[in-house]
């Protein structure tokens, strides 16, 4: 590279990063994934817009110099290698191995359903995907199946965070299934790449390549995993921290990437698998992971995502029918497969749809997969564009659709969700004994939910006698675990106040009687903790106990719990 090429190359990098950041931030403002902004930045800078309006400037900047193109290609390759390394690090293998039956069903059906659908469609209708050569049919069908079964973990994680369901059963199931999808998807894809590699005549037969691939996976995950753990323990103790660990991670990551590239599978696969082995170390703390993610996703990943748009003309290669086919296959396969898995696993229908749409975000990982397949000559521009549009559309629609369904279900597990105006009792001052009040509330709860009032009262009273449930600030929470399917509650407002043996000795004005399933002790604690956090302040209890209508009380509680 001469001085002018170096200058142009650096200007190019600055422009790419500037546009990536600009569009990324714009998308972030409207609460959409940043990666979509980065792709749009590529489309704007690439032949689709900038290249059409200013062809000369575009050529000079991005096309003319072969040396610059090679340098940019090397950097974007580095970007995806690092992206896959950090993706691998976030795969929690022990978690996948001991995942519950529920999560396993979602993971399995979420992968197999779209895979079979995509494979079958591509195999029997190859002309739709411009496959003329019959020999390529199998590899191609395998690729389409894999492309449809992959889920983008980063986008999913972000959405779960935004919807505030990360630390919930649904969030946990979605995350573990997304990890599983990624793992299976990348293994199948690496086999496909191996098959292409052997077709291209790398000197290793497809069978041997697959054997080599599995040997690499097994040695990395069984043996290297242990070695890395010791290595990181050593680095933490004796090297500068976290610099030493970060350095070692990249040395290992690049070496593994070089190895898989050498044997004829793409470099990214080595980075991904070794990432899993690295991520299992107990010495790899959350802050190190976050630093890596910051570094990779803010500098190198944008270069890669923008570069996608620089390669092709999205208008010229846009095929609406193909996009429609891809989208239909994706939604039918991924959403239905995952939702069915969730339903079979015991989730209700709304939770199942939430999980289905959550896992349908193809996002970043699909873009990497598509780019590698495009570079390997497996797919043409038309299919590549369709794949990207499918990835972007599913990513964009995932969060709103999840939100729609989650709002229908998550309330069940807060007081606001299980309380309606029939469950409110504004007590006259005739009841001044807590036993009597608990009896009255038990009766109300039993009546609303079709339960045995004696059973409810006995359980709640037994618990109350063991340890009084009067808390501070005029709040009391009599509760018990009974033979019920879902948690249920009734609320009493006692204007004068009733003695509940509270911690601060004050009478209770707000009394919530809560009954939860006997086999879910943690759910009881979560509900109780939520009630204390939302209602446990004096001013809130004073406000509610001064309300005179049941509707107003329910409305206030809904507002408090939605904040």
């Amino acid at each position: 590279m001469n001085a002018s090429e170096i200058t142009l190359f650096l200007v190019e990098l600055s422009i790419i990063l500037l546009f990536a950041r600009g569009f990324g931030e714009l998308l972030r403002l409207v609460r959409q994934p940043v990666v979509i902004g980065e792709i749009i930045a590529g489309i704007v800078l690439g032949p689709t817009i900038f290249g059409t309006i200013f062809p000369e400037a575009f050529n000079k900047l991005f096309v003319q110099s072969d040396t610059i193109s090679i340098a940019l290609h090397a950097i974007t390759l580095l970007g995806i290698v690092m992206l896959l390394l950090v993706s691998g690090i976030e795969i929690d293998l022990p978690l996948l191995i001991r995942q519950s039956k529920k999560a396993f069903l979602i993971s399995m059906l979420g992968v197999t359903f779209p895979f079979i659908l995509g494979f079958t469609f591509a195999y029997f209708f190859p002309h739709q995907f411009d496959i003329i050569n019959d020999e390529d049919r199998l590899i191609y069908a395998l690729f389409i199946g894999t492309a449809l079964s992959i889920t983008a973990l980063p986008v999913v994680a972000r959405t779960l965070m935004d919807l505030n369901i990360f630390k919930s059963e649904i969030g946990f199931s979605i995350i573990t299934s997304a990890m599983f999808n990624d793992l299976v998807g990348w293994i199948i894809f690496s086999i496909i790449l191996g098959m292409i590699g052997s077709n291209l005549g790398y000197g290793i037969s497809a069978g041997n390549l697959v054997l080599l691939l599995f040997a690499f996976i097994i040695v990395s995950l069984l043996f290297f995993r242990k070695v890395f753990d010791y290595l990181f323990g050593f680095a933490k103790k004796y090297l500068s921290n976290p610099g030493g660990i970060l350095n070692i991670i990249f040395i290992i990551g690049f070496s593994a990437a070089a190895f898989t590239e050498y044997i004829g599978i793409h470099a990214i696969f080595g980075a991904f698998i070794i990432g899993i082995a690295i991520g299992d170390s107990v010495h790899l703390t959350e802050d190190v992971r976050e630093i890596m993610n910051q570094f990779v996703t803010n500098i190198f990943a944008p270069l890669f995502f923008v570069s996608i748009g620089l390669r092709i003309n999205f208008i010229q290669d846009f095929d609406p029918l193909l996009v429609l086919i891809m989208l239909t296959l994706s939604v039918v396969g991924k959403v239905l497969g995952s939702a069915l898995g969730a339903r079979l696993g015991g989730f209700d229908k709304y939770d199942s749809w939430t999980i289905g749409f959550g896992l349908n975000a193809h996002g970043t990982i699909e873009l990497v997969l598509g780019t590698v397949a495009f570079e390997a000559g497996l797919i043409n521009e038309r299919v590549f564009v369709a794949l990207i549009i499918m990835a972007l559309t599913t990513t964009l629609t995932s969060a709103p659709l999840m939100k729609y369904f989650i709002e229908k279900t998550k309330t069940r597990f807060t007081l606001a969700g299980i309380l309606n105006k029939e469950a409110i009792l504004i007590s006259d001052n005739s009841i001044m004994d807590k036993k009597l009040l608990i009896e009255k509330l038990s009766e109300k709860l039993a009546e609303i939910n079709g339960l045995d009032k004696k059973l409810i009262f006995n359980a709640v009273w037994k618990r109350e006698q063991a340890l009084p449930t009067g808390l501070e600030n005029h709040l009391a929470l009599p509760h018990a675990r009974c033979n019920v399917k879902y948690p249920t509650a009734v609320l009493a407002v006692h204007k004068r106040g009733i003695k509940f043996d509270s911690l601060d000795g004050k009478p209770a004005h707000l009394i919530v009687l809560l009954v939860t399933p006997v086999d879910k002790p943690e759910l009881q604690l979560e509900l109780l903790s939520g009630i204390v956090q939302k209602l446990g302040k004096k001013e809130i209890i004073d406000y509610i106990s001064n309300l005179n209508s049941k509707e107003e009380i329910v409305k206030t509680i809904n507002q408090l719990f939605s904040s």
Partner: protein
Amino acid sequence: MFKKIGLAVTFSPNGLSLLKNARILAQLFEAELVVIHVGEKDSDKEIKMNEMILESGLKEGDYSLVWQSGEPADTIIDVCIKEKIDLLVSGALEKEPLLKYYTGSVARTLMRAASCSVLVLVNPENKIIKFNKICVGVDYTPLNEIAVKRAYKLAQLENAEELILVREFQVPGLAITISDGGNTEETEARRLIWQKEEEMKLKLFAEELNLTGIKLQLVCRYGKEGWELKQYAQQSGCDLLVIALPSNKLKFFDRIFKHDIEFIFSQLPCSLLIIR
């Protein structure tokens, strides 16, 4: 709390110490004591065993003795089932050699596979182990509630200085939220909210179980489950770690892809009581 205690004993310096500890535990729980020795019975060994029992302070009538030959771990487990033992006491090394850890030593096999509760005394050479600081892992399962209640009862009986309930939690994939427009402050803030929620749950859990009359400490730690508990027990100088473990939960695969309990088994931070 425990009605019948089994003690797996060998002819070693640890054997005598285990006998002494088991005698005291049997008195503490007012339980029967069954001394189990795996091996062929002959007159020499019988004399040796009687001497050891005598030296430990056990008197005739305080215990029963079972001789059984066979593979040590399996035989002990079988005797426990046959004798309806509800607490098996055994000694163990703090850390097994690597290969032994994977192939499974007698003590580790008992921890993983015994159908009753197991108390593992770490390096009990010539000392009576006193449980002053008892730490319990909390996961809110019904079995865990039993484990906490038993730890509390034990703490009362032992007149322990402190009972510590440790809740570990982790949200897999959290760091990757940084990838798409997230930032470390937001992640940290969310982690703090979860930490507060967990602390509140733990407080309510302790209240629910009515653990009064003892110094109680509640600890919530974010990190890999099992590993955090082990680290805490080690760092805070606990004498006993109590965990709940359903029967047949652990398989060989769990040793390869180590998780929660196996982190503790691979290097015992202190003596360990496994409640089943």
